[in-house]
């Protein structure tokens, strides 16, 4: 029953989305509001149907309806309630459902917010969004049929990929997809601007909030992905330049470039062409990410080979890129810049440099990711580039970007005078250099760490300098210090929200730097009652115990800390044996701390519990990465607060 009902709803949704896309386009072209209104109704219908499909799928998972093939493959009777819901998007078909569902929500909000305030662009933007939606519904209906029936109905399902039995799997895909799909909105408005020829700055200002929202969710998705990798995979790291990670990181890079370059257009009427190109690139990269991870053309720990879906995605990607770039070529003359770069030492040029570096980073990540394909196509040899390549190329780029992060917000527009530079940067540079000397005397010997830390100090100093100066200016007119600061943050929330986001990035940078420079690990075999020691921690191995869980068999080791630090705490790393998986899954146990985490992975063990091999890590400052995510959230919220009109 469910398979047929679901499939039927999908086909109706597909028809509605296609109709809506065409109707909105024709309505926009001929100026017939009735058609646009009809497209809105179609969009509402798609929203209802896709939501119903999502709920239907959740229902099938909760009731173990193994007549749905997707349910049978991704769950079994032992799967706990909580994970039966996350299993909905635990594999390709369901993740497309989630994607579409988010896209319908965005479409609905676009309708609500912009149907009146963006008259000329709106019908075309709606048309583009419904077109993209139609593609995703098509994918759900044909190459990745989520409601495909399974006959005969098996008595039990296969079960979810055990690695996905984690709370991070609730938030990570949701945040990531809110980010991915969110970029559809600025893309749709950019295409609308190209089609209508209204390529001025209206589409940029209209979509500013959307862009920031999408950027934020993408950042959050990446951070939660890192957290999942860190506490589930048991290798003690959070980022491995795996193709799937790169797939999400590339649109983040171009999206970050876009968030910055739009400010140049708003302020100086420059970079129109560039902004359109960036948003096209960002949107295409979100599609490319899905293509990459789901088509099976690149091997990754996450990728699942899937037949026809790759061809669908590549065709759609080609359609998007060729159409968007052809439109861009068509409007070439209108997209010409009005402003000009007055001086190399100016905010425009710093932002430009920031964009060049972000796009350069995107290209290196892109190249590194598709390198196995290129090498096989050109030389017939399977080769891969790994972490060293990505780190060597990207670390200098990222360090330079952090430097620019300090310079950009303070340097003058048009042409910075020597006085402007001295006033803004002399102090922070001195503080940065003093910081570097301090870190060196404190015993930091890694040049990279010293550079990174002193850059963080420099940028923080620029933010403090700016905040102090502005607060003092307000205090001169008689406001108290807290009032002045509060008023500043709220009145100029775009600027100071941006600063807080920058602070968040700095905190993440500290985490990345610290974890690379100071983490230590050891691997050792201990007998019962013996100790493993690392960095001042003493761990006593107390024994093993086995337990039968609802869907797996678990062997847990007990380790008590009795050294100078954290005495009395018990860590219980385990190994989980799932019947559907040939190798056991490590269950990491850890104690998180602000400055360091103690992290234990259970390796081999003797069956009688007399001895066990463990990997012990003390990972430094990793928590700062997650903390940075919180600061990032605060900054984004601040920058999205509706700007208050000043009292006249």
């Amino acid at each position, binding site marked *: 029953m469910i398979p047929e009902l679901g499939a039927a709803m999908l086909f109706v949704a597909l028809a509605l989305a296609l109709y809506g896309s065409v109707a909105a386009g024709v309505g926009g072209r001929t100026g017939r509001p009735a058609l646009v209104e009809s497209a809105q109704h179609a969009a509402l219908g798609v929203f209802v149907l896709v939501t119903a499909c999502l709920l239907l799928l959740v229902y099938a998972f909760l009731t173990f309806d193994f007549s749905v093939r997707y349910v049978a493959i991704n769950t079994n009777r032992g799967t706990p309630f909580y994970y039966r819901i996350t299993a909905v998007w635990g594999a390709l078909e369901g993740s497309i459902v989630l994607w579409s569902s988010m896209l319908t929500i965005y479409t609905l909000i676009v309708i609500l917010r912009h149907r009146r305030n963006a008259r000329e662009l709106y019908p075309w933007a709606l048309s583009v969004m419904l077109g993209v939606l139609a593609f995703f519904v098509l994918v759900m209906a044909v190459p990745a049929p989520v409601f495909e029936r399974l006959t005969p109905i098996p008595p039990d399902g296969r079960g979810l990929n055990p690695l996905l039995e984690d709370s991070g799997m609730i938030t990570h895909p949701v945040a990531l997809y809110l980010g991915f799909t969110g970029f559809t909105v600025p893309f749709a408005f950019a295409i609308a601007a190209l089609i209508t020829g209204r390529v001025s700055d209206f589409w940029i200002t209209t979509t500013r909030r959307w862009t920031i929202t999408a950027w934020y969710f993408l950042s959050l998705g990446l951070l939660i992905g890192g957290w999942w990798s860190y506490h589930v995979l048991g290798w003690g790291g959070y980022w491995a330049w795996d193709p799937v990670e790169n797939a999400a990181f590339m649109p983040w890079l171009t999206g970050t470039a876009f968030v910055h370059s739009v400010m140049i257009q708003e302020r100086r009427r420059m970079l129109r062409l560039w902004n359109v190109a960036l948003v096209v690139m960002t949107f295409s990269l979100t599609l490319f990410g899905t293509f990459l991870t789901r088509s*099976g*053309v690149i091997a990754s720990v996450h990728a699942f080979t899937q037949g026809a879906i790759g061809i669908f995605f590549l065709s759609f990607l080609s359609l998007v*890129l060729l159409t968007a770039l052809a439109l861009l070529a068509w409007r070439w003359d209108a997209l010409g810049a009005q402003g000009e770069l007055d001086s190399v030492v100016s905010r425009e040029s710093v932002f430009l440099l920031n964009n060049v570096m972000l796009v350069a980073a995107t290209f290196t990540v892109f190249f590194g990711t598709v390198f196995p394909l290129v090498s*096989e196509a050109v030389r017939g040899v399977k080769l891969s580039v790994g972490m060293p390549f990505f780190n060597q190329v990207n670390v200098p780029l990222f360090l330079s970007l952090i430097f620019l992060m300090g310079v950009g917000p303070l340097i003058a527009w048009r042409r910075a005078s020597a006085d402007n530079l001295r006033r803004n940067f002399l102090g922070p540079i001195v503080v940065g250099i003093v910081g570097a000397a301090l870190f060196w005397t404190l015993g930091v010997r890694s040049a990279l760490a010293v550079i990174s830390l002193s850059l963080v100090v420099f940028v923080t100093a620029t933010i403090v300098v700016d905040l102090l100066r502005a607060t003092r200016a307000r205090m001169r007119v008689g406001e108290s210090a807290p009032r002045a600061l509060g008023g500043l943050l709220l009145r100029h929330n775009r600027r100071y929200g941006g600063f807080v986001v920058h602070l968040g990035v700095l905190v993440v940078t500290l985490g990345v730097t610290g974890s690379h420079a100071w983490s230590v690990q050891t691997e050792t075999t201990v007998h019962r009652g013996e100790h493993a020691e690392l960095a001042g921690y003493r761990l006593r191995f107390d024994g093993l115990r086995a337990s039968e869980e609802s869907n797996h068999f678990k062997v847990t080791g007990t380790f008590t800390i009795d050294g100078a630090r954290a005495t009395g705490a018990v860590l219980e790393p385990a190994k989980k044996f799932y019947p559907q998986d040939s190798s056991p899954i490590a269950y990491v146990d850890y104690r998180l701390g602000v400055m360091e985490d103690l992290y234990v992975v259970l390796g081999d063990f003797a069956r009688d519990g007399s001895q066990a091999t463990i990997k012990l890590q003390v990972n430094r400052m990793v928590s700062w990465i997650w903390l940075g995510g919180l600061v990032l959230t605060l900054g984004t919220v601040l920058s999205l607060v509706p700007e208050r009109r000043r009292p006249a």
Partner: protein
Amino acid sequence: MWRWLIPLSVVPVLAVLAYGFRVDPRAIPSPLVDRPAAAFALTAFDGQAVRLEALRGKVVVVNFWASWCNPACYDEAPVLERGWREYKDRGVVVIGVDIQDTREAALEFMRRFEITFPNAPDPAGKVSVDYGVYGVPETFFVDRQGRIRAKHVGALTDDAFKTSVERLLPGA
């Protein structure tokens, strides 16, 4: 005119991606191919001994499967059974090795597909380690001299079975 080159610039990138469909990133040839097949001695579900050594002189198809491996193992079970019935008189033996499974579920699976060729559990997982089994199903084709001559990953089809077996039979 040159501005129309912008859309064309993405064509090479798209072409490389399209090329990706023609190659399988996981198709790394098994290092076991053309090496002697590791010997094993297992006890079949029906109690009979299954020894690879004893089958020298015959073409042996060693199939690794599990009852939870749905749909691939479900798809190929009838293929194996058909192949076995068709070729058993021409010196071909099909052996099923059931890994990471429970006895009841495995027997139910064999009843369902009316499997008649010998099947044995691999209780310690030793055989699957010797054959470098990465997932199920995987199938190895062993020639009459006891060498692995081909490895098939994923569900077998009638064609794939026939082609691989015919190649190893005399007169081919």
